[in-house]
């Protein structure tokens, strides 16, 4: 049976929607059934995702599982899907993380304004859009998912978060909408330009040739519309201020999806749209972007060191990590790009691990202040070890998956921008600080009063965290399955638009 003909992408987007429909017919009182339906749906989607990965032809660099139907032919808009290696990896990450989030956040919907039904419907709708945003090969379709995605996240933060959740949700939405509208201007620009030059289309492959006819000025403007939107999404200093608030206020599960998946749309967009559509403008702006990325790496790290709140801490570490990813992308080397993509995948899981364990800790202690924890290693060893491993993954300890990606990014950047790479390396040192300080405070030392009777992880929590840690460890020793998927796509992006890897600068025997 040829799975490639089965429209697996559409299927994987349809399943969560069907789950939502099923939820609509579930009585409000049967919360357990609601959760079971949500879990079953997300697991099913994950299975479809894995099927896709198995049937993916690693050697072929183009789009696979391609589907295309006219949507609004008058504007040349198609419902066009297809994935290359980069998109596949990110979809895989999304569909694996969603069921984990559902299991880990089994009771998250309880503190909310609305019923569990609403909570899981929003998660499922969000999953559809997460897949759609990575799978679109039509710029307009991508934009639709990119923007529509904000609505469920907005309600997830504002409706089910804690603390200043409404304010955080609004901040998130306004930042994102602002970026999105700038991108809309660029999309209209692309639309008009592609019409003017004879081919009214939103197809990404066709549009990749558009830059040859644009004036540099025009290309720069169109590039900026996209880039600012993406830089807000995968927050780059100075557009990051919404993230810590959103991450602090959202439930841990929502934060995982927000930082793990949604923000990756930004970095993914930089690769798929900025580099591919506007290669010349990308080159023009690279010095600026690399600078911002380096600032983000250091700035995020410093803020993380000073953070007193465990959720804010994780958000700040992510700002630092997104700096690495952006740097890897705009280094415009195959290694940098592969590393950045692998980094996105790994960051998804290591952040998920951190957030989920932090969520377990917070739910036990009813506090997210780091100072309230202490000596957890003795009271709750399994929880403490999970946090430790997640933390080590975040600081890219060799043997854990993030080490590979961080190394690749630094090496890839060094060949072209040695100074930036060297400065960014300090980020690793700072990472040791921002992870080891909370590890020491929360896990080691004497048990803080009030923590003596905390219970260790229960079975459900273990089931949720185990696969994440497994992925972190296994990919740390053996990253090639994922790298094999990424590399051909990364090579294509780099070579297609005339970027070349710099030649080795040291040649022997000369």
């Amino acid at each position, binding site marked *: 049976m040829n799975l490639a003909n089965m429209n697996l992408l559409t299927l994987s987007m349809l399943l969560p929607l069907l789950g939502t429909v099923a939820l609509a017919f579930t009585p409000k009182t049967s919360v357990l059934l609601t959760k079971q339906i949500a879990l079953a749906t997300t697991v099913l989607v994950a299975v479809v995702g894995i099927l896709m990965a198995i049937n993916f032809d690693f050697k072929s660099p183009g789009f696979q599982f391609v589907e295309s139907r006219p949507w*609004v032919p*008058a504007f040349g808009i198609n419902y066009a899907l297809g994935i290359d290696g980069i998109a596949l990896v990110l979809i895989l990450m999304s569909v694996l993380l969603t069921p984990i989030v559902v299991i880990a956040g089994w009771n998250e919907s309880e503190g909310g*304004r609305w019923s569990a039904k609403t909570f899981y419907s929003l998660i499922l709708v969000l999953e559809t859009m997460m897949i759609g945003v990575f799978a679109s090969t039509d710029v307009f379709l991508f934009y639709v*998912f990119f*923007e529509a995605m904000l609505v469920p996240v907005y309600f997830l933060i504002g409706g089910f978060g804690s603390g200043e959740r409404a304010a955080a949700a609004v901040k998130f939405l306004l930042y994102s909408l602002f970026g999105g509208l700038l991108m*809309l201007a660029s*999309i*209209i620009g692309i639309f*008009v330009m592609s019409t003017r030059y004879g081919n009214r289309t939103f197809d990404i492959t066709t549009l990749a040739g558009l830059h040859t006819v644009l004036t540099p000025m025009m290309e720069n403007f169109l590039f900026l519309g996209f880039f600012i939107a993406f830089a807000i999404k995968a927050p780059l200093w100075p557009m990051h201020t919404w993230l810590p608030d959103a991450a602090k206020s959202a439930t841990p599960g929502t934060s995982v999806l927000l930082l793990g998946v949604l923000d990756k749309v930004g970095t993914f967009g930089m690769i798929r749209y900025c580099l591919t559509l506007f290669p010349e403008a990308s080159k023009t702006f690279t010095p600026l972007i690399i600078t911002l990325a380096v600032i983000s790496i250091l700035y995020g790290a410093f803020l993380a060191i000073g953070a007193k709140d465990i959720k804010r801490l994780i958000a700040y570490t992510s700002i630092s990590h997104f700096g690495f990813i952006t740097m890897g992308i705009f280094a415009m080397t195959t290694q940098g790009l592969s590393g950045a993509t692998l980094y996105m995948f790994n960051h998804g899981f290591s952040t998920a691990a951190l957030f989920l364990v932090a969520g377990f800790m917070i739910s036990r202690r009813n506090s997210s202040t780091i100072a309230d924890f202490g000596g957890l290693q003795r009271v709750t060893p399994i929880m403490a070890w999970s946090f430790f491993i997640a933390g080590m993954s975040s600081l890219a300890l060799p043997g854990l998956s993030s080490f590979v990606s961080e190394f690749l990014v630094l090496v890839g950047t060094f060949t072209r921008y040695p100074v930036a790479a060297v400065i960014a390396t300090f980020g690793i040192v700072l990472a040791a600080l921002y992870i080891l300080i909370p590890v020491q405070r929360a896990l080691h030392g004497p048990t803080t009063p009030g923590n003596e009777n905390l219970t260790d992880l229960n079975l459900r929590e273990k089931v949720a965290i185990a696969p994440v840690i497994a992925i972190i460890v296994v990919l740390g020793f053996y990253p090639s399955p994922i790298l094999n998927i990424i590399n051909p796509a990364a090579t294509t992006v780099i070579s297609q638009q005339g970027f070349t890897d710099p030649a080795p600068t040291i040649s022997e025997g000369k």
Partner: protein
Amino acid sequence: MIDFVSPTLEYALLAPMLIVLAGALIGVLIEAFAPRSARASSQLFITLATLAISLASLIRVRNSASTTAAMESVTFDGAGMLLQASILVISIIAVLLLADQENFTALASTLPGSDEERTSLQKDLRVTEIYPLTLFAVAGMLLFPLATDLITLFVALEMLSLPLYLLAGLSRRRRLMSQEAALKYFLLGAFSSAFFLMGVAYLYGYSASTTFAGIHAAVIGSTGNDIYLLLGIAFLSIGLLFKVGAVPFHAWSPDVYQGAPTAVTAFMAAATKVAAFGAMLRIFYVSFAEAYWQWRPALIAIALITMVFGSLVAIAQRDVKRMLAYSSIAHAGFLLSGVIALNKTGLDASIFYLFAYGVATVGAFGVVTLVRDSAGEVTDLNRWSGLGKRSPWVATAFAGFLLAFAGIPLTSGFIGKFSIFSAAYESGSTAILITGVLSSAIAAFFYIRVIVLMFFKDPVEDGTSVVIPSIYTQITIVVSAVVTFALGIYPTPLIDFIQSTASFLR
């Protein structure tokens, strides 16, 4: 001495308008002769039937070739038919809101606060004149975008305006405010009509003709002094810009939106916009197109100011009707980019936008009629907080309309915004595109604030509640919501239809 030639009238083509006028006259007769108790239901039936028959007759003539009728004072073409159809559809769903008599004064002639008023309320009297008045206004609106003669255009303008002035003053609660709104609307409307007529005079002086075709010919054959053309366009535009509520001719709209009975506001906000923009598109596309370098810079400036001003001032509003009024000003700015675009895509986009925006507007005001306390509608936004908790469906519907106004994908507003801005940009106006998206971002702020209020704030305990909607209001809201989302998810049929149909006969 010229022989008088009796005018020829193409009744088949004029039928949609004539039917509405006939329906209005029947309504007047019912007012005069039918017993009071039977009026409300029969009027509603007559009105709906009239609009439906008119729509049917419009569909029947849809394939006839573009032509002028009634001695070239009216033109039938694809764009005109589409605009007429939009007006009729919007009117039908808006009339259903009128059916909820709670909005209207018992007896318009009584002084507010007088004993007479109290007696009329006790007797449970009902104003049923609203239905024929609405039909008269609809007839004017149907004529407005078809008129190709300045005199006919003016007659249509007055025909649609006068009933609206009256309707605006018929609110049941806060009658003084309502009457003030009506008077304000009337005075400023009369003022703008004067400007309009002045423009007509100048254009006649310039071209020795009152027909659009005649003016067009004069513009093409222009050899020198265009000052009369310029003055004519300027004054005529003032009249039209007043009707669409563009800055700086917008001053009436917040007060009138707020003071008028909400059902009337819904009808006025949605249908008038379609008619007025329809007329504006026609005269600018048909008559003034070749002189675009003379009026376009000014119109671009007005569009930019309108977008920014409407979005900015809306932020400060504490009253939902005033907020929607300023939002409609901002949307008038967006719609002006369709006029400025001056190309086929601009025309298509404008028609789509007008229809989508009109439907969502009626739906949004439909929701506003539902939120009440013992003293009538509650329009103070603070008291809307927690609405999502008390009546999730009503709040969700309202949120949906707001998202459509904000232009979030998967709603009709997004497709509208995309197409109208791309048309403007295609015609070379980068300023419109940039200012458009930026003011959309500002506008998103206050739409979202209302959503926050409804969903993320706790309800205030002051007796504000959502009444169980009558079946008519339910139909209005549900139809508007379905259309809004359907046009966002799959707009292709309508876009294709507009694209293949919309054109102006020159």
